[in-house]
């Protein structure tokens, strides 16, 4: 009886310990997956890089996430987009949709390229990654609005946005636009490719939404001094 009671008083530790999402000691360094950094010979390193290498040989390093690879085709912006599209942690489906989108965009553009006359060929952009990045750039708002309370009322005040916030807003608008405002029967990759190609040429609903935000911010210029940071 004493043995079973002591068994119940043992502190409970989980069998599997999550490493990445636990709070790492700031002492730990970020992993560097790019191969090129390690191929530079000793002589060609700058003083900062030498210092970094010294540090890496002493300090412990955090575990790398599953989505980060040393592949030359790894794109952090695209990975962020895939994560934002993911539902219920199903990254395979989200990654599949993105690859189908890229393929679809490339097919449309390459078909146009091969059918175009010689003079027009140089103007057609066939690289889906370039189109994706340019489209996202065209959707990023420059200035944002926030709700500030002054004298009992809430005012929409224009504020500057950080880079991360702008990128997040552009991606969020793109995804919600494709999910909500398109025909029910079209597949996601088709909707995304249409919207991205439109945003690349500065047309489409997402770019319109960005312009509307800019107009709202412009119209609320008077409240700009409500911001105190």
């Amino acid at each position: 009886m004493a043995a079973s009671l002591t068994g119940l008083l043992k502190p409970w530790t989980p069998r599997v310990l999550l490493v990445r999402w636990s709070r790492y000691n700031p002492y730990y360094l970020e992993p560097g997956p790019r191969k090129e950094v390690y191929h530079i010979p000793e002589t060609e390193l700058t003083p900062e890089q030498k210092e970094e290498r010294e540090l890496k040989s002493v300090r412990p390093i955090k575990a790398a996430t599953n989505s980060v690879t040393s592949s030359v085709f790894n794109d952090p912006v695209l990975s962020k987009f895939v994560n934002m599209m993911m539902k219920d942690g199903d990254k395979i489906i989200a990654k599949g949709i993105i690859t189908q989108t890229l393929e679809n965009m490339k097919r449309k553009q390459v078909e146009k390229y091969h059918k175009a006359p010689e003079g027009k060929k140089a103007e057609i952009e066939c690289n889906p990654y370039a189109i994706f990045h340019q489209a996202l750039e065209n959707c990023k708002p420059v200035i944002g609005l926030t709700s500030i309370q002054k004298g009992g009322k809430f005012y929409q005040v224009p504020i500057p946005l950080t880079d991360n916030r702008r990128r997040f807003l552009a991606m969020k608008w793109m995804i919600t636009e494709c999910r909500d405002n398109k025909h029910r029967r079209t597949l996601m990759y088709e909707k995304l490719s249409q919207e991205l190609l439109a945003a690349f040429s500065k047309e489409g609903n997402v770019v319109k939404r960005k312009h509307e935000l800019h107009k709202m911010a412009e119209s609320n210029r008077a409240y700009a001094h409500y911001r105190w940071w």
Partner: protein
Amino acid sequence: MLFNRSLPAPARPSSITTLDGSDSEYVDNYKYLGVWLDCKLSFQTHIKHLQSKIKSRISFLFCNKASFTYAAKHTLVKLTPSITVPSVLSPKPHILPTTACQSEQHLGQYYTVPPSHFHTVFPHGLPPRYQQQVKTFNEGCVMVRQPALELISHLKRADYSKPTLRYLLYGVKGSGKTMSLCHTVHYCSTQGWLVLHIPDAHLWVKNCKELLPSSYHASRFDQPIQASNWLRNFRTTNEHFLSKIKLRQRYVWTKRESTEEGRPLGELVDMGVSRVKSSSDVVGAVLKELRLQAGGTEGGFRLAVAVDGVNGLWGRTTLKKEDKSPVAPEELTLVHNLRKMINNDWCGGAVIATLSQTGSLYAPSSAYLPQELLGEEGFDSMDPFVPVPVSLYSEKEFESCYLYYLDRHWLQHPHSQTEEGKKELIFLSNRNPSVLERLCAFL
């Protein structure tokens, strides 16, 4: 020099004296005013001299072949000395020789299928991703590979008075069996054979919405939709044969309809397409007629039976009868007739078949060998056959495919055009053609 076009060259005269009394030299070839003349008054000597001059000038380019794009290599290989005389003189740009004259030297290179052939020769039968690629690139190029060349050389040298030979293409998933089959079908088509192309035998043993009991045989089942679709495509492929082949037997369809002896085959096919209910029996009749008439001496044609996914004909189906009991493949009219076609009891043609795990039913995904996929019954029916293994891309073929994608502006990612990216592609795809195609699609 004595010029003479038609008569054979005369014996050399002992001497010809000129007016001055001195002997003149007798020559066979003479260069006069920039052109080499010979006794037969043909341009052969002139062309030989031109060729040797060109070869000496561009020999350095041959040494550095590897650094050029696919298009430049294509043009360079054209200028090898083995190319026959007319192509050097012809002003139009070079296209790879037609399927009839492809040989080992063309291994790894792409040949273009003329656009008109796509609608006639391939209304069905090409893999769907390849069809998308044809639409995107605005042209259809097929790589010349070892299995297809082997098949074509067998077909050229076979004896068509003996019973038919069965050829079986097998290989791992995505190694290019269907494309090799389509290449061979294109060859047969250009040689004027009658091509019976069944795009996928698995389509006849699964997903059938309407299964009618057969009117001809009590225990069999008809598949009207599949049969009429196939007949429509058959009609598109073999338009020119339909009026030439005459039926040797009278076929009775219902109390009021029958097709008389001596009517053209086209009438039978049209009837099958319009009367969907009896289309499966029409397919059986068409196959029987072609089998009887293939090896015939008067107006004889050669018959190529190309079946993709032949392992679907033996095995199990997913179809069920009304009392929920499973349907065996031999109880389907289409499968029954096709099995009779694959038997080697007729002559005057060839049976080219492909194994396929992709659409197969109840077969493990790692199975690719004939024994595993055909099963005992299938192997005994197909035995003896000529096995043709289809392997993954060799290094040369991978290079060729990579350069072709670069040439068609398909590889767009900046890193995919570097050496690092190419090494990564080799690693990720393991030189498997379909995996490479899917990888390059989004890169």
